[in-house]
């Protein structure tokens, strides 16, 4: 379960967001500039909001009123960045194991994640020898092997061609079924929401517009499409 409230002023955006959810996969849906990535950065600890409280499954990561701010390195948040951010000087194996705790059982988990994401043939390769889809799968595996309490996916399919997109989406679906890690998915594509999310928080201009179950979200989208011209992909 996630409980989040944030207030922060950027030069071009006043962020004032609050929600709580028990969903296994929660989508943050909204157009570019709505503040979605800032919410993820605050959860990961890469952004220190002016005010806020963030708790995941009862563990408080941030509580500005009480002066609590768990350092990023100790938050155990698996963050899959939009651009992958694989370490260019390490091969796939080195990237995958970077955040893995040094325990005996890590070996079994490593094999399971490599299998789940289909990375077996790529382990010795450097990131610049991977396709876009392969890079994202490695980034997802790297985040998962750090044993996160939550997985943050920031537009994980953007910049991928149709085939790679379908492939990564299929892998994310498997992860959801088999691992059960709480996941926060940032996207402005409704089809990704439909494929992965249980619940949706719609953001616009730094504020929560609505929070609704995915079935309702998809029904609204379908009705809007049937009633008039299809909305642009990024529209709310």
């Amino acid at each position, binding site marked *: 379960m996630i409980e989040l409230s944030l207030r922060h002023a950027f030069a071009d955006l006043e962020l004032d967001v609050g929600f709580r959810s028990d969903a296994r996969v929660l989508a943050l849906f909204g157009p570019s500039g709505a503040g979605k990535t800032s919410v993820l950065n605050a959860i*990961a*600890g*890469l952004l220190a909001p002016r005010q806020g409280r963030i708790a995941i499954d009862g563990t408080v990561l941030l509580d500005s009123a009480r002066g609590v701010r768990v350092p*990023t*390195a*100790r*938050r*155990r*948040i*698996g*963050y899959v*960045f939009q*651009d992958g*951010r694989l*370490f*260019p*000087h390490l091969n796939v194996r080195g990237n995958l194991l*970077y*955040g893995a*705790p040094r325990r005996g059982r890590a070996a079994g988990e490593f094999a399971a994640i490599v299998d789940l994401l289909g990375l077996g043939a790529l382990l010795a390769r450097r990131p*610049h020898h991977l396709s876009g889809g392969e890079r994202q799968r490695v980034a997802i595996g*790297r*985040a998962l092997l*750090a044993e996160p309490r939550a997985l943050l996916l920031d537009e994980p399919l953007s910049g991928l061609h149709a085939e790679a997109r379908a492939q990564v989406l299929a892998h994310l679906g498997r992860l959801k079924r088999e691992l059960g890690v709480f996941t926060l998915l940032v996207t402005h594509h409704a089809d990704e929401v439909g494929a992965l999310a249980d619940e949706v928080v719609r953001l616009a201009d730094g504020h929560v517009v609505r929070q609704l179950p995915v079935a309702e979200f998809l029904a609204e989208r379908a009705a809007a499409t049937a009633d008039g011209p299809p909305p642009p992909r990024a529209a709310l």
Partner: protein
Amino acid sequence: MALLAADEWQALALSLRVAVLAVAGAAPFALALAWLLSRKRFRGRMLLEALLFLPLILPPVVTGYALLALLGRHAPLGELLGRFGIVVAFRWTGAVVAAAVMGFPLLVLSVRQAFDHVDRRLEAAAETLGAGAWRRFATITLPLSARGIAAGAVLAFARAFGEFGATISFVSNIPGETRTLPIAIYELLNVPGGMPGVRRLALVSLVVAFAASAAATRLAGGAARRRGRED
């Protein structure tokens, strides 16, 4: 006929030893200062940068005099170190200190540039994976700056190898102790019949300088190519 006379070999060996130890001794401080200048904003930063450039701008003889005023046997710091048995003035170790001071700005500038070029987002990614500040530095920042650091080390080595003014002011010209290659050349220039020796040592200097320059160019070129590929 031997390539070099015994005292000329001695001067060459001393210069190589001094230059290598100067770079090795300066490296940890240079890495720390370069990281500070690349990653942190703090009061007095401009003053620190101005101080850093001083050995590049001051006449080397003045830097040597400053070292003597600071580390000489009767200078405050020199006297303090002397109580612990550490004496550097007029010793070959003093030549290492002088060479380190002269090469330090070049090393810091190169390393800082290399640190500046490391993608900070990769360090943030490492942080989300549980890496603390030291681990991020050792496993991300340092390896991704390796070529730039190596290029800086070669430049500092070359500067230290050719050091003359600060060295002769600080540790004088003592055969077998502080007579480095440039000082040996200077000595030979001032004695009758010294020209053949000057030519031999000048040729040796040329070879070392050329090797260092080629290494620095190769390393810096490699770093630029790597950056281009990562962009």
